[in-house]
């Protein structure tokens, strides 16, 4: 048991951090509380650096808690990913704090940290119990984070919607877990992988797996469980939306990968058609619905659906390159999306609506923010030399490989649907750019004063986007190596 403990040093310290921040509330005067966030950021920074130094607790690989908890390349990749995400989100939150319930801002920080803890657990869960607990930890925290602006009805409404649908999905998942356990008698992924082939025909077992997928599909907002995303994205406070868009989606994906490719690879093999269809519809739905959308945060909601679709390309490809591509794409998506939300948080904070027209004249008001938003949009649209392009390139490549290996026509259709999606998305992304640079209805042109941290965040995001677009080697190698943890799925 004690042996196991030193696997979860990171998680423990993160939870500790969360508690400390929460307690800090009592000692810090209200007007200073927003700076608590920077303390948290510093601490997370230290943890991140530790994770790179060889003996960081999360980088010594192995299983703990009789195999319920695993530290491997994949978990390491995602843990760093989540920490970075949390850091950036904390920055955004600190900028946005006055819009949140200002007094209790420290709670907000600590909740972000707790969500982060959940994600960290998710990243290395190797057992359905761990999976369930991790997901619930994330979800329940997000219920609060989403509805944190108690003054705004929209925030509460979003919270309730997320609550009901989230609870619904998790009950499905739990029931699924129950069925899986009932049929196979094991909850551990590794053991399950060994026995799963015998149960390929058992409908109860398959039903169980599917119900688990329902839960995960809800987290990543994949069709047909995407319906909640736009409303929640729109209603939630911007930092929450940002964290929801990147953190919880990524957590969903790491779990999805673990379940599909570690727990039940033999079953997954037969589901290529299912995965193709889901990913195709998700791409189309997200992009098409985003077309007429004027509300920026809602637009991000739809676009995040479509990106879930793109990411599912990598799942559907059923090959190591696909999985690596997913990791790479998520890495790029992290900086891109957070860049976008940073701008939203800074620019639209004073407007009651989140309409795209709110960006009008931004190029005069703050060139840096204008550039950040533009780069984010262009990267989302998948245009070189930005992260989005290389990610999409890898995803497409993996799918075409799959098409070539298994002469399954679905893959070819999938490629072209993805292509259509990209083209459609160009339209609304460039619409945003247009609003920034040459929209006529520029109302106020008052320059926006940026705090040093905000500038820093913007530059970090831009740097990240360009770095991943121009020098993919490092991250790509990490991703490839992380993807090796999956048993190679072959028919």
């Amino acid at each position, binding site marked *: 048991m004690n042996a196991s403990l030193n696997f979860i040093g990171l998680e423990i310290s993160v939870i500790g951090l969360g508690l400390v921040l929460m307690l800090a509330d009592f000692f810090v005067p209200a007007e200073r509380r927003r700076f608590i966030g920077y303390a948290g950021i510093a601490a997370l920074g230290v943890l991140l650096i530790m994770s790179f130094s060889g003996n960081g607790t999360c980088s010594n690989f192995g299983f703990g808690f009789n195999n319920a908890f695993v530290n491997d390349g994949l978990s390491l990749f995602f843990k760093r990913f989540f920490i970075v995400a949390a850091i950036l989100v904390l920055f955004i939150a600190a900028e946005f704090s006055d819009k949140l319930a200002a007094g209790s801002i420290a709670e907000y920080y600590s909740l972000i940290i707790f969500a982060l803890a959940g994600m960290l657990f998710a990243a290395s869960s190797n057992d359905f119990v761990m999976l369930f607990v991790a997901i619930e930890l994330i979800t329940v925290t997000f219920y609060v984070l989403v509805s944190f602006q108690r003054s705004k009805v929209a925030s509460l409404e979003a919270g309730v919607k997320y609550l009901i649908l989230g609870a*619904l999905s998790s009950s499905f998942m739990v029931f699924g877990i129950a069925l899986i356990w009932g049929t196979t008698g094991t909850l551990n992924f590794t053991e399950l992988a060994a026995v799963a082939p015998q149960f390929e025909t058992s409908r109860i077992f398959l039903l169980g797996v599917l119900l688990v997928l329902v839960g995960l599909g809800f987290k990543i907002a994949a069709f047909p469980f995407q319906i909640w995303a736009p409303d929640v994205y729109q209603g939630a406070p911007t930092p929450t939306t940002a964290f929801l868009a990147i953190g919880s989606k990524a957590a969903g994906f790491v779990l999805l990968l673990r379940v599909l490719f570690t727990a039940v690879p033999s079953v997954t093999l037969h*589901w290529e058609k299912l995965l193709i269809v889901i990913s195709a519809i998700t791409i189309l739905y997200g992009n098409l619905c985003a077309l007429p*959308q004027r509300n920026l945060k809602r637009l991000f909601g739809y676009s995040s659906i479509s990106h879930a679709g793109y990411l599912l390309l990598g799942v559907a490809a059923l090959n190591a390159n696909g999985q690596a591509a997913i990791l790479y794409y998520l890495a790029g998506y992290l900086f891109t999306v957070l860049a976008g939300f940073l701008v939203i948080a800074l620019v639209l904070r004073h407007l009651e609506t989140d309409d795209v027209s709110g960006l009008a004249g931004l190029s005069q008001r703050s060139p840096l923010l204008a550039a950040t938003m533009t780069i984010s949009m262009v990267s989302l649209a998948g245009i070189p030399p930005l992260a989005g392009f290389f990610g999409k390139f890898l995803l497409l490549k993996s799918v075409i490989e799959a098409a070539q290996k298994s002469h399954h026509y679905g893959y070819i259709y999938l490629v072209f649907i993805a292509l259509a999606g990209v083209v459609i998305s160009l339209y609304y992304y460039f619409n945003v750019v247009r609003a920034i640079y040459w929209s006529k209805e520029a109302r106020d042109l008052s320059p926006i004063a940026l705090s040093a941290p905000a500038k820093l965040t913007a530059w970090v995001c831009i740097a990240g986007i360009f770095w991943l677009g121009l020098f993919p080697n490092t991250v790509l190698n990490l991703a490839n190596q992380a993807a090796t943890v999956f048993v190679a799925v072959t028919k």
Partner: protein
Amino acid sequence: MKYENLPWLILFLPLISAAVITLFTLRSKTVSSLISIGAVVAGFVMTVIFVNANGMQFSGETSLQWLEIGDLKADFGLKLDALSMMMLFVVTGVGGLIHIYSYGYMHEDRSMARFFACLSLFTFSMLGIVLANNFLMMFISWELVGVSSYLLIGFWFEKPSAGDAAKKAFIVNRLGDFGFLFGILMVWGLLGSLNFSALQNSITANPAALGAMATTAGLLIFCGAMGKSAQFPLHVWLPDAMEGPTPVSALIHAATMVAAGVYMLCRSLFLFNADSLHVISYIGGFTALIAALMAVQQNDIKRIIAYSTLSQLGYMVMTVGLNGPTPAMFHLTTHAFFKALLFLAAGSVIIGMHHEQDIWQMGNLRKKMPITFLTFTIGTLALCGVPPFSGFYSKDAILAQAWEQKSYLLFGVAVFIAALTTFYTFRLFFVVFFGKEKSDHAKHAHESSLVMTLPLVILAVFSFAGGFIGITNNYGSQFVHEHETFSAWQQFAEPFHNPFPMVCGLVAFAIGFFAALSLYKNATSDPLPKKLGGLATLMKNKFYFDEIYEATFIRAHDFLAAVADWIDRWILEGAIIGAIRGGTDLSGRALRLAQTGNLQTYAFLFVLGVALLLYFVLGK
């Protein structure tokens, strides 16, 4: 071959002068004109040197490699033989005179420099045609000639009519060039070479080399000549081309360029089989006929001469078709002399009349402009084939050719045309120079300056003596294998070897002359329309060719353009792209209706989704 670099110099001097003028001396009229004149005169001198050095009966080639891709080999090469040498004389000689004349004629024009630049460009391209040793080079110069004529016709581009005329000339020529290049491609595809000598060898080696395509290829090549030499049905551009300055009409549209077609035919004569030659001869004859008829009812002094040019070109083409390159080239040369003379004289008349061109405004000018009158007379006599003027010999040679070839129909036509030619020329002659002044301009007309009259005189000399200075000898040496060179006296007496055609020619002249005399001596208005009625209007309106083409060719292309544009606008752009755009947008708006905002609906859709998923996997 001595001085073999001289031809290159001859060829490129005008180009250089054109370049220099456009780049540097556009500001100064005098300098530019002197450069241009110098270039062409120097060319003439060098031609003389070259010919003296090598004698006339020789042939040689010199070439630089220009383009070589796989089996497409196009050299930039010069073919030097009697044919090209004679043409060199014509182009540089007559051209030189016209350059000098233009110095006087264009003196008032503010863009004289541009004029001389274009003139030099033209000279270069014309020399290019003359010297080219392969079809591609010839085609290139061919196009350049076309464009320089385009520029010169449109020289006074502010005049809408000039602009239109230039456009028309260019497009009609392009029609001919289309056939020409088509033919070149075909010949190249069949014989695998573009070089004249090589082609000639492969044809002589195997006369059937062109196979079934022979006639087609021949006629396609002829299309080029049709365009440049304004043969029916592509003759319509030449009369309009008179919108250009008169020296241009003299140089390009009488002496040299329009003759290029005939020259090209003679150059590539070996390609044409009997059938194609047959067609060519009849087209030539027909052109000559209708042109002569049109000329009878024109009132613009330049247009009359233009139509006569047309009909003379028809003569030459017909003669080529009758397998008589020598007479054709002979007539081409003499015609260059006297037609240039006529045009320049007309130009001097026009200047004297302050740019009045309607002959019915003139009259009795022989008093006012003696030199012009004298030279014009000589030109007229030469054109009408009065012995011993040059025209007499060349025209007689043509008639004789027709007669010897036993194509009596064409012979008859030729004689008839001879009569017509005399008629309309003397009509012009009497109306302009005799009778009484028909306008104030005519009363105050004045003789032109020396720089303009001098070339007239020189040309007059050649128009007179052209018949017996050995032109035939040189061409003969080119085309006839065992031919003896005639002394001047032999040439003088040549027509008597075959009296019948000569007699016919003289009779035709007599008829035409007396008809014109009776009708137009002292006439103040044209009596002919009353006599001829409908026919006259038909002639006056050039048999409505322009209108017909307008209604068919142009209309068809505009219609197709409209159709294509409509398809582009409404089918491709509107329907297809519009449908895709609209469809996408619409489906987006439809899909998002699912987002009702109602939690219950969401839950329901969620469950529905689960059901779908389960059915999809477990359903079967």
